[in-house]
C-alpha cells in the first residue's frame, strides 16, 4: 500500500507527511509536481507549504501543474485524496473540493494549537477516530477562513460534507464560516483540512491525534485493496 505525497516548488510539509504516513503503516513516495503519474499509489496527499509561492492566490497556480491531471483522474476513479493546509487550498482552487479559503479575519498568520470536533467517524479519513473524541492539532496559515455562500453551506452541512469543525476551548482561529476546518467532496473520497495531522502524529510533537487521520486513510486503502 502506497501513498503519493505531491511536491510542488514551495511545498514544505512533504517530508513530515511522508514520515507520518509511514508511522501509520503505509509506504510513502514523494511525487514531483511535473510527473504525469502517481507511481501506482493507492492514495494521494497534497501537503502543506506554499505551492508556487502562493503567488496570485494560494493554490491557484498549483492547479495547473502536470501532476494534477493524474490526481484528478485518481479522484474520479474514487481514489482517496487528502489535502492538508496548502493542499486544501490547492484542492479548492482545482474545484475538487467546494469553497474558498480566504485570508484570516484575525489580521495575523495563525500558528497555534486548535481543537477539532469530528462530525463523522464513518468516512475514509476518520474511521479510526473514536466517536465523540476531539482532536488536538496545530494550524499554521494566513489564508484559512473557509467561505461559501450561505445556501451552499446549508447544502454542504445537509449532505454531511463538513468533516471537521474548530471547537472549544480554543475555538475558531481564523474566521471560518460555521467554524469549518475541513470538508469532503460530494462522493466523500476527497478531503481537505487546514490543521496539520502530520505535525501531530507523535506524542513527542505534543499530540498524536493527527495519526488517527493518517491511520484512517491507510485502513481505508487496505479495505479497498481487500475488496478489489
Amino acid at each position, binding site marked *: 500500500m502506497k501513498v503519493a505525497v505531491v511536491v510542488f516548488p514551495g511545498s514544505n510539509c512533504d517530508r513530515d507527511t511522508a514520515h507520518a504516513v509511514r508511522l501509520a503503516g503505509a509506504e510513502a513516495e514523494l511525487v514531483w509536481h511535473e510527473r504525469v503519474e502517481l507511481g501506482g499509489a493507492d492514495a494521494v496527499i497534497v501537503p502543506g507549504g506554499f505551492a508556487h509561492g502562493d503567488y*496570485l*492566490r494560494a493554490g*491557484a*497556480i498549483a492547479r*495547473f501543474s502536470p501532476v494534477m491531471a493524474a490526481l484528478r483522474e485518481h479522484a474520479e476513479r474514487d481514489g482517496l485524496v487528502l489535502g492538508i493546509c496548502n493542499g486544501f487550498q490547492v484542492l479548492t*482552487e482545482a474545484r475538487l473540493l467546494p*469553497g*474558498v479559503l*480566504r*485570508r*484570516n*479575519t484575525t*489580521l495575523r498568520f495563525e500558528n497555534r494549537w486548535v481543537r477539532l470536533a469530528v462530525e463523522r467517524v464513518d468516512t475514509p479519513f476518520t474511521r479510526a477516530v473514536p466517536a465523540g473524541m476531539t482532536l488536538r492539532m496545530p494550524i499554521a496559515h494566513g489564508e484559512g*477562513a473557509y*467561505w461559501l455562500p450561505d445556501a451552499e453551506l446549508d447544502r454542504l452541512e445537509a449532505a454531511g460534507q463538513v468533516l471537521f469543525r474548530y471547537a472549544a476551548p480554543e475555538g475558531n482561529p481564523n*474566521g471560518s464560516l460555521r467554524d469549518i476546518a475541513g470538508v469532503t467532496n460530494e462522493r466523500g473520497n476527497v478531503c481537505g483540512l487546514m490543521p496539520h495531522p502530520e505535525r501531530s502524529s507523535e506524542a513527542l510533537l505534543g499530540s498524536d491525534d493527527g495519526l488517527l487521520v493518517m491511520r484512517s486513510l491507510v485502513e481505508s486503502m487496505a479495505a479497498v485493496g481487500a475488496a478489489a
Partner: protein
Amino acid sequence: MATYRFSVSIMPKDGILDPQGRAVEASLAALDAANVHHVRIGRRVEVDVEAGSTDEAWATVDRLSGELLANPLIESWEIEGLHTPGPLGPSK
C-alpha cells in the same frame, strides 16, 4: 498578427468577506479619514496578447481571467484594452 495589451482588474465580489479591505478601513481614523468607507482590495494584471483581432485577443484574456487570474466564486473581473505596444521582439 498584432499585439494587444489589456489590463484585468480583479475585485472581491460585493458581499464577499474582504479581510484586507476591512483592515485598511480600520486604520483610516488615524488618517483623519473616518468619512471613507467600503474599502475593497483587489489586484490588477497586465498582459500582452498576440492575436489576429482585438475580439480574439479579448476572448483569450477573458478565458484566462475566469480560469486563473480570478476565482469566479469570490471575484469578478473587468478587462480594459490599453494602447497597442506594437510588435514584441522579432516576428516569428
